[in-house]
């Protein structure tokens, strides 16, 4: 319980720091680009929007830094992220709300899938170090080293360009409407296969290598020797004695993995024109839409923090030592 409380405090503090970074970036950079952006849109922005943009990006030069800081927090707590200039005059929160579900489903499912498969294979490879499978490891490091977006480009080139098996872009066919109908789900799946496969292939080696390594370490422990001496079946030793202990660091390192997955998926969405948050971020960047850029940074950070918190929670459920630490 104390552990959980400590982690909660940590994540809240991290969120505050991240949001503060978000506050300071536009103010510390030389020449505030928001000024020029606003000049371009002058006359088309209502006074109320102007006030909120002022609070978010610090155009009120007459106010002190502290005053600006509090105005920024007030705006955030009201869920006000300003307006997007790319999708003028839609609110940033609305744009993000429309694109976030696509990313959450795609990245979420792929991460879980990659974790399960990678951990399972790592467990088997680690059980017999030096076997045939073990020699395939350098190959997986190659796949983990290449940027996801490049692998996506290749996949697109081969499966859509040359073979015409799968669609080139988008998340669903424009002829079907969104809803819980078979045609929509089939179309969405059809469009998700390539990005999902790319994501899984690129991320799997991270889990695989770590699990293999921990498995090798765990198999040297005395309790494995004892289990062998007791004459337990090999499956039982591998799953209940080896894997059960070896899996803990994998869960604990979720934080780092998730950062990479989010990073990679942003670019994957650009490659596949998948209408998730990464694609919107790309459009925001190309159009110098600073409110949208910062809004996305904020939301992505909060989602990653939340996912990490859930991973920590799982860790407590699985590891009695973390529970008993109090």
């Amino acid at each position, binding site marked *: 319980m104390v552990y959980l409380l400590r982690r909660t405090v940590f994540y809240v503090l991290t969120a505050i720091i991240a949001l503060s970074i978000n506050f300071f970036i536009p103010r510390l950079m030389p020449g505030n680009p928001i000024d020029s952006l606003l000049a371009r849109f002058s006359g088309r922005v209502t006074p109320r929007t102007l006030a909120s943009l002022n609070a978010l990006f610090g155009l009120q030069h007459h106010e002190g830094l502290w005053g600006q800081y509090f105005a920024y927090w007030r705006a955030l707590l009201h869920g006000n992220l300003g307006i997007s200039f790319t999708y003028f005059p839609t609110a940033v929160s609305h744009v993000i709300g429309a694109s976030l579900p696509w990313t959450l489903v795609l990245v979420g499912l792929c991460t879980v899938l990659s974790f399960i498969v990678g951990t399972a294979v790592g467990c088997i490879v680690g059980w017999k170090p030096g076997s045939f499978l073990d020699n395939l490891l350098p190959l997986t*490091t190659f796949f983990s080293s290449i940027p996801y977006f490049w692998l996506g480009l*290749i996949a697109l080139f081969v499966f859509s360009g040359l073979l015409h098996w799968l669609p080139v872009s988008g998340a669903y066919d424009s002829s079907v409407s969104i809803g819980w109908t078979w045609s929509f789900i089939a179309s969405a799946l059809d469009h998700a296969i390539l990005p999902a496969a790319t994501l899984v292939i690129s991320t799997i080696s991270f889990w695989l290598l770590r699990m293999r*390594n921990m498995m*090798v370490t765990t198999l040297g422990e005395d309790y494995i020797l004892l289990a062998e001496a007791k004459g337990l079946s090999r499956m039982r030793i591998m799953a209940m004695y080896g894997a059960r202990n070896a899996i803990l660091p994998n869960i604990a*390192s979720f934080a780092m993995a998730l950062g990479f997955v989010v990073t990679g998926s942003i670019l994957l969405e650009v490659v596949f024109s998948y209408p998730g948050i990464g694609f919107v971020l*790309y459009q925001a*960047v190309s159009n110098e839409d600073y409110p949208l850029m910062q809004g996305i*940074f904020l939301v992505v*950070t909060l989602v990653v923090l939340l996912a990490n918190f859930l991973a920590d929670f799982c860790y407590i459920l699985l590891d009695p030592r973390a529970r008993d630490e109090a």
Partner: protein
Amino acid sequence: MSAISGGAAPVPVGTRVGSKKRYAAARQSRDRFVRFWRRLTQSRKTFAGLVILLIFLLIALFGPWIDSQSPSAMSGAVLQGPSTAHWLGTTQTGQDVAAQLLDGTRFTLLVSFGAAAVATVIALIIGIGGGYLGGIGGEVLSMLSNCFLVIPALPLVIVLAGYLPNKGGISLILVLALTGWAWGARILRAQTLSLRRRDFVLAARVAGERSWRILFSEILPHVMPIAASGFVFTVIFAIVTQSSLAFLGLGDVTTWSWGTMLYWAQNNSALGLGAWWWFVPPGLCIGLVGMALALINFGIDDFVNPRLRVTDLRRRGRRAARLSVAEVLAPHASDSAVVEAVGK
């Protein structure tokens, strides 16, 4: 590579130590280095990694001399496949892909190694400083690195780069270093925490050595392999992130790097035109350098991670196993992807 070998190099010993002791200490650290290097080159995987990296470093140095064509020069030969005139074909404007690849190697590697060097220095200061000092200051530093570890790097880099008026190499290095130091700081802190309780550090303290001297001559040499591993890891991060930024058009699109090549290929729809020779080579190079670095990290891990070796020894009987069995088993049992286990 030079950074790794430099990593375990002897650390100057201060004047207060007698010459005999100084000699012994110097020899000890040289032995450490020799052991480190021998173990690195012993594994076939690590050796392969070192060779691949060396080839790319040579290309970065001498690239423009290998292929004398200018990477930006346009010609009438548009979108041609690989041939003897153009080893890797041409772009939509008749530029030579091979020349771009060779020229881009320098900027890509320079920025990545530069960013990793800056990030490693930050990680050393915050990791070792925080780990050794302890107390509230140490907690704050640890909190800071954990924060930066959780905040997703690329969105932050994108926002930072989006505001930067000057997108040259130096600012790119600083942005990458600022977002890439946290991992190294965390593993260094964990190692320092365990070191500061060891006997030799306690002895140095009791002997009345000053803190900075303990840090530099007792702790620093022992965390160097971990710092080297963190450095290699950060280079991979920097290459991929840098290419991602360039691919999004957030870098300087007039400087040739592997990422810029991918940016132009994507913007001129090389994919739709079927010009695979345009977008395959840069990605392949990124992957190869990344793989080489990961393989080198296997070797460093092998040296660093005592847990794996200790368990081997315990299983086969401690004394007899000391040298022979450990050496035989090492290639199988102890290459791993992540150093983190040390700190846990």
